[in-house]
């Protein structure tokens, strides 16, 4: 006896949302449009979060004093994307990395370019490469990627607490 064909009912659902970033995260986005990377310091534990947060996850208070962070960073960890999927910024292989901006206590995620993927290392020192000024917008895509800044590799101890 043959199995009947399964009944398939396609039910496409589309919901549209107008999402707002909230007052804390908005400061970070607006700063990016001015070619600045803004973090904020938790008034209790003094950790510098980037982006600033509505609540420090250790202390439960909003981050306070805003801090302009350097545009240089250390690669704390990274992955090499080898498999093509969905919307991709580049043809694989390319590198997505955790980047600890100088002066920050929390890494951000961004692309690392400017050297072969297999030469990216933990501790690599990089700097932000911005889009042309006329393309700056309140998005992290205002930074095109990070590339090596020529400084020697950072010592493991300088970022081991941020892995």
């Amino acid at each position, binding site marked *: 006896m043959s199995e009947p064909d399964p009944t398939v009912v396609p039910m496409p*659902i589309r*919901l*549209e949302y107008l999402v*707002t*970033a*909230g007052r804390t*995260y908005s400061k970070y986005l607006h700063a990016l449009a001015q070619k600045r990377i803004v973090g904020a310091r938790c008034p209790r534990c003094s950790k510098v979060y980037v982006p600033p*947060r509505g*609540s420090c996850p250790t202390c439960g208070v*909003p981050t306070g004093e805003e801090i302009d962070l350097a545009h240089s960073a250390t690669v704390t960890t990274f992955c090499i994307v080898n498999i093509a999927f969905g919307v991709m910024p580049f043809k694989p292989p390319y590198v997505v990395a955790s980047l600890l901006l100088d002066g920050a206590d929390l890494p951000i995620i961004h692309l690392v370019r400017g050297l072969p993927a297999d030469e990216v290392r933990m501790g690599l020192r990089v700097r932000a490469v911005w889009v042309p000024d006329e393309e700056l917008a309140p998005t992290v895509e205002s930074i095109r990627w990070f590339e090596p800044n020529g400084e020697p590799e950072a010592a493991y101890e300088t970022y081991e607490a941020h892995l």
Partner: protein
Amino acid sequence: MTRPIAVVAFAQLPNVRRDTAREETELVQPVINEALEQAKLTRRDIGFTCSGSSDFLLGRPFSFVSALDALAPWPPMSESHVEMDGAWALYEAWVRLQCGDVDTALVYAYGKSSLGNLRDVLAQQLDPYYLAPLVPDSVSLAALQARALLDAGGCSEADMAAVAARSRRDAASNPFAQVKKSRAASQLLDDPYLVAPLRKHDCPPISDGACAVVLAAARSGGERQVVITGIDHRVEPHALGVRDLTRSVSTRRAAEHAGLFRGKVDIAELHAPFTHQELLLLRELSLSDDVKVNPSGGALAANPMMVAGLTRIGEAATRLARGEGKRAIAHATSGPCLQQNLVCVLEVT
């Protein structure tokens, strides 16, 4: 024998049509801080935390995890979440406190109903095979129920308008309410239908908001406190077609199991987003005319999704604590046409 649990604090944000300034942590943090301050507790004193919210409202997955930052969840804490109104989070917290090894619980809920088209978003909670593909919106489903109730002689359009006018007049003294005034009931009936037989005044506003409640094991020694003497929740069959929409058997059963009918109540905070639903609930709960119904204005004055049910419990407890009565019922609902219902009986001891 259940362990008596007291409602010791309640805080809420002013309800607004569209809150563009706050993301999750910014919604939740002020109400958590205020509730803890009222209870004279810190985050570290709390034994269990439970929240209610829905990612469908926010339009992104795991938004409740982002909200957790407001709790300072490091070092790790004991926490749970329901994809439901916060009243069900309170139920989970109440059950957790019954275990006896923790004595305090924090319950919070937040909802931004404004980000998507709420009527379409709510259609996604329907049975996915037969109903959801038709995308019947939440107001149209409520209108079907109102029509059934009108046809059965359960209420009149004038009765419904009276509920709207009274709720919004009462809301004038509620600083957190969103819709605070109303024309006279008789004038409301001149308005056109929004979805017949519902007019605009029969429907809740779309609201963004958040609230928090602190529960604690009741203290012995005759101290005046507001105690949960019964709490229960029940659900109707999922398919709207097999339900009698003019009844709310689940509400009645929940009320029986929560011990509502063991005595009279002074205050009822009913989560009735549509006017006819209040009339339907009043009948199922056998509430007499001398009960003060929805003195806060209820969901017709502010209806933040996932929050408005927990707010009913907080409002009822706050009024008892202020001496406005001795016994109250708080009711919460979820889903289309009063799909799920929770009844919480509160008493001053």
